[in-house]
């Protein structure tokens, strides 16, 4: 490698460029942001991201442009983001940490967490729940477990590598009941499967189920507390009913960035972090999120440390249930 030659001319050019560069640094962001969403259009992730950017774009003075790369339980979107998007802090990812870290643990994709990607702004905590259709013979979660001890119950789930799927498997393990997971590739088809009676019960994050009150009923929550008690007819927590020690299982949408972008552009990252945190004080964001069907009780900020801890915990949990969640025995 040859060292660049420093001449008077290059020095002068460099000095002349300094104020311009400084101005450019200070002017972040200079252009719109591009966001990779590793799920399909029209889903909960898109609705929440758009609600959030209503407030965020006001603070940053730039717009957010979305690209959707669903497939392989989010693997496509993540790999594409890490490998093919410039780590310049203008490229972000909006993901669902729970299911996507399970995917990371099970499918061993071509990126490393947290070396390549860092979550830095958790937006919500959406607890996993067990639900049935309104006229189901199962009135309580105890009925479900009792029946599942007699016969294997079919359970609709968004995808097998998902916190809600882990929840029902853990419940089966703890109570000696049997559950058969049927993946429906998305929350909406999962709800339809339960409404139509194709499966006995369903497991999903609870926020979407509250929007279907009157057609679907929540029987139990995989969390230490039911923050949506008023909207779920006071559904109990699973651990309280059965005395089990199933960890809190929830989906959690978060903004993520290349870890290299944080290292290369700490000032840009600081600005993103600070402004993202401020969005939670913006009434407009909360109203937009509520209009998009997101219960306000589920909106909870989490910083980089909180997100990393949660993601690593989810990877550990997925490894524990690898045999049931993956085709690789």
């Amino acid at each position, binding site marked *: 490698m040859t060292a660049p030659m420093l001449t008077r001319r290059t020095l002068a050019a460099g000095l002349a460029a300094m104020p311009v560069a400084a101005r450019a640094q200070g002017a972040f962001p200079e252009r719109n942001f591009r966001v990779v969403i590793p799920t*399909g*259009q*029209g*889903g909960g992730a*898109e*609705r929440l991201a*758009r609600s959030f950017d209503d407030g965020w774009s006001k603070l940053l003075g730039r*717009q957010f442009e*979305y*690209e959707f*790369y*669903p*497939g*392989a*339980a989010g*693997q*496509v979107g993540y*790999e*594409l983001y890490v*490998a093919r998007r410039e780590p310049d802090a203008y490229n972000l990812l909006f993901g669902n940490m729970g299911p996507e870290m399970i*995917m990371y643990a*099970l*499918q061993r994709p071509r990126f490393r967490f947290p070396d390549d990607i860092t979550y830095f702004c958790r937006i919500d905590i959406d607890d996993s729940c067990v639900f049935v259709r309104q006229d189901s013979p199962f009135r309580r979660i105890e009925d479900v477990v009792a029946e599942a001890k007699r016969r*294997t119950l*079919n359970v609709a789930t968004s*995808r*097998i*590598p998902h916190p809600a799927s882990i929840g029902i498997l853990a419940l089966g393990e703890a109570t000696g009941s049997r559950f*058969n*997971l*049927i*993946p*429906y*590739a998305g929350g*909406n*088809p999962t*709800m*339809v*499967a339960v*409404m*139509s*009676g*194709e*499966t006995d019960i369903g497991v999903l994050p609870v926020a979407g189920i509250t*929007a*279907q009150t*009157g*057609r679907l009923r929540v029987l139990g929550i995989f969390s230490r507390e039911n923050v949506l008690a008023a909207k779920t007819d006071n559904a109990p927590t699973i651990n309280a009913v059965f005395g089990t020690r199933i960890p809190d299982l929830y989906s959690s949408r978060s903004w993520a960035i290349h870890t290299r972008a944080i290292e290369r552009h700490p000032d840009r990252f600081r600005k993103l972090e600070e402004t993202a945190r401020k969005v939670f004080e913006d009434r407009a964001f909360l109203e*937009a999120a509520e*209009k*998009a*069907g997101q219960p306000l009780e589920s909106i909870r900020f989490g910083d980089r440390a909180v997100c990393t801890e949660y993601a690593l915990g989810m990877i550990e949990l997925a490894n524990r249930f690898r045999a049931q*969640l*993956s*085709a*690789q025995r």
Partner: protein
Amino acid sequence: MELDLATLAGLFGRSFSLWWAIVPGIALGLAVGILPGFSPQNTLIILLPVTLAMDVEAALAFMIALYCANHLSGSIPAILVNIPGSAGAAATCIDGYQMTKNGQAQQALVVSFVASVAGGLITSLAVLALLPFLARLGLVLRSVEMVVIILFGLTLIAVLAAKDMLKGLIGGAFGLMLGAIGTDQVFSTPRATFGFLELYDGLPLVPVLIGLFAISEALVMIEERVTGNAAPRAPQRPQWLETVDGLRMAARHWWQIVWTGFIGLVIGVIPGAGAYIASFVAYQQSRLFSRTPHLYGTGHPPGVIAPESANNGVTSGTLVPTMAIGVPGGSTSAVMMIVLQYQGIVLGPRLFLEQPSIAYGVFVMMTVAYLFMVALILPLARYAAKVVTVPVHTIVPLIIALTVVGAFADREYLFDMALALVFGVIGYVAVRTDYHVTSILIGVLLGPIFERYLLRSLRIGQGDILVLFSSPIANVLWCLLVVSVVLPIWRERRLARTAT
């Protein structure tokens, strides 16, 4: 969900007053539909900042007009140059392009426009009348029933293979194998992707469609020009008389427009079922119940009517679950749902009581959009048909340039452009060796969704294959499937016996 006449009249009046949103929606939908790779959902996403800023009714009218027009115009390149504008128009190529080769390009376009508009119009009116029933229908047709419905489409491979059964079945099996590329349907484990990230989500439909039909057709045109074997070109001066002739052809088959439209409506109601399932199933059924099945594939107008009417019937059906239970029936309706939710509109049965102008208004707007299309579309046939008079040295570079850009536009992967070229070569080889490219395409399109519903059914049955015969509706469909396979064979044998 009941609707009285006075409210309905008011909704029609309001929808007509939104002509300023409907007409640009139609124009944009037509333009986008002609270009393979430019889907209505991508266009609506690009236009989200505009639609989110609009009044909710105007935004809906615009989106619906764009969506319906898009489904209609996919047939234009399918008929004129054998390039379906969308997967839903792939079945239209079979007879539409043959009509063009027979010098009936303008008639084929008129037949397709009339079938599309009438199919869409009839089914959107049917939705208004039958909404509560249709909303329940979406919950009755489950995975097991979908397995049989998709099998109806897959049997079309055998129909296309009729001339050379072995080659036809090889083509279909090849397509099914290609359709198995991507992550598995249960555990999301990648298979046969050769490490290409771009294949994890399966073979992308647009580049495959573009390659098999557009690029291969361009290669055939180049070859014919170079070797001087080009077939005689279609009529040089399209006449208004041909438009009238096309209208007459469509009118003669009005009943077919109605019932194939309803096939589209029913399939559209099932969340996740695409327009291409409807168009292939409708084509197969149309041929089955025809008195002249041997004419299909030779440029027979009902072969254009069936897929086009079904294709547009889907547009009405797909909005039923979206409005009635708040679950999008397809990707375009998912984008519409975002706009509605952004405006604070909660979808579901309550919407029909609280905001009937939106809930029923959607279907009224669709009806009005189709009425506008009657006036706007028919004159287009005469001018669109002039494409067949464009010289090969002009049209081939245009086809290749536009479609390769279309291959990129859908997912923005350069890989997809290369994939389109690879499938172009596969399509060219298939054409030149008498393998039916449509057989390959049916395998690629229907294979993955057949696998999805089959595996799901088997998991529901906990490994018991008898689950496929566990529902009364599915059993009726199985019987119809057997009839639709056996009947043509019996009919052909009877004809052969009569001839001897």
